[in-house]
């Protein structure tokens, strides 16, 4: 009998530990992953959207995944971290569309390749995935900086044919069902920056859109102005505008069937 009480006491104290720190309960397990990363040499670039327009942004050298995270990659993350499966995920961290096209917790959609980019994942999920493989999400600036490169140069933003390529990529259908790395890589050896999926960035919620900016202490009218006034000098703004508008409209628990992610890493780690 005493034994039972001791046991009960013990189990109580364990519960209260759990209650104190939910992160222990949802402890993230490390997952090994062999996705190739590419070193992106730091530099400066001119931000071209919104109130940052014309601002020179400095980028430190970093590593970026050479392609978006795939369904297969994500499945191995789920196997190690079942708290992120569609049946177990906390509503705080993902809306009801989370992995909606997956047949079950561990079954990727039938008509989609394991090597296609994972989609219908929230920002929280993407961030935890990145953490589980010892990486992080890239910032908007890191992503945009890398995306300036065409096949042969680091910065192709002055080339009209590059803008044309981007806009055409954005019009393709069912991009999210393609297999990664089927297109040619850019100057750095990075694939699928365009024409596959939209990608989460760490600080996507730094983009403030018009609708609410009326209420914000710094308005961001120029974001829309830039979009409305498509001047021939900078049609590329239009493509950038599309990306920024999407980022500005997202919430971190949103899951969309054409929104995936790739990971980044600091140089010194």
């Amino acid at each position, binding site marked *: *009998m*005493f034994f*039972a*009480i001791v046991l*009960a*006491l013990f*189990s*109580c104290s364990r*519960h*209260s530990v759990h*209650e*104190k*720190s*939910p*992160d*222990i309960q*949802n402890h993230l397990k490390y997952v090994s992953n062999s996705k190739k990363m590419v070193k992106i040499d730091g530099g400066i670039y001119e931000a071209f959207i919104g*109130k940052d327009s014309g601002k020179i942004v400095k980028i430190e050298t970093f590593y970026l995944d050479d392609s978006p995270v795939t369904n297969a990659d994500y499945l191995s993350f789920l196997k190690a971290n079942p708290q992120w499966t569609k049946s177990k995920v*906390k*509503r*705080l*961290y993902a809306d009801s569309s989370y992995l909606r096209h997956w047949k079950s917790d561990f079954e990727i959609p039938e008509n989609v390749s394991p090597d296609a980019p994972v989609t219908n994942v929230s*920002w*929280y999920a993407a*961030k935890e995935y990145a953490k589980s493989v010892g990486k*992080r999400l890239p910032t908007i600036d890191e992503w945009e900086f890398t995306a300036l490169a065409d096949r042969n140069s680091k910065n192709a933003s002055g080339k009209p044919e590059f803008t044309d390529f981007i806009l055409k990529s954005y019009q393709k259908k069912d991009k999210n069902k393609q297999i990664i790395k089927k297109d040619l890589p850019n100057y750095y050896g990075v694939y699928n920056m365009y024409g596959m999926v939209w990608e989460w960035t*760490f*600080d996507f*919620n*730094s*983009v*403030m859109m018009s609708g*609410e900016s*009326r*209420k*914000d*202490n*710094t308005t961001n009218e120029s974001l829309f102005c830039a979009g409305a006034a498509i001047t021939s000098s900078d049609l590329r703004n239009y493509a950038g505008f599309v990306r920024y508008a999407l980022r500005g409209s997202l*919430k*971190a628990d949103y899951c969309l069937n054409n929104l995936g992610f790739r990971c980044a890493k600091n140089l010194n780690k």
Partner: protein
Amino acid sequence: MKRLLYLLSAFLILSCSKKEEMISPDSIYNVGSVWEKQDGNKISFIDFKGKVLVTTMIFTSCKTACPRLTAEMKKIENEVGKVSPDNIEYVLISIDPETDTPEVMKAYLKTHQLDEKEWMFIRSNENDTREIANIMAVKYKEISPIEFSHSNIISVYSKNGTLAYQKEGLDNDIQRTAKEIKKQLEL
């Protein structure tokens, strides 16, 4: 003696099951990040369990919207009236954790005459700050080393940590927010 033991163990089991009470899947108590308070002590959101939580995100060196946001929080507190500190917590969350050290946060509370019984100022790292901003639907961006642009949102959380009400923008909805807080206090 045996009966007593049974009673005791029944009591234990009861107290256990109470502790095991599930945290709602959309509760802010699920957030595991650890925050530093103005007194240097650590806190997590689960520690607010049982209290109505009123939050906003600011940074102390802000000269424009933040003083007004803080003033609105105070107005809301006045409107709500005297409540035991056991039942409510007004929390300021720093979006500039590098500048807002415990000393700075403590000084800020003092300057604005915010009683540390009901008021708290917390900070964490960039990662956890980005996450909590997302949970509270707050957007922010560093526009210079000392300036951030950010949404002006005051959130009210129930005693279970679920979002009860959000007030967006300045100069509005003070009464409505206070009313919602009173309602949550009754629950």
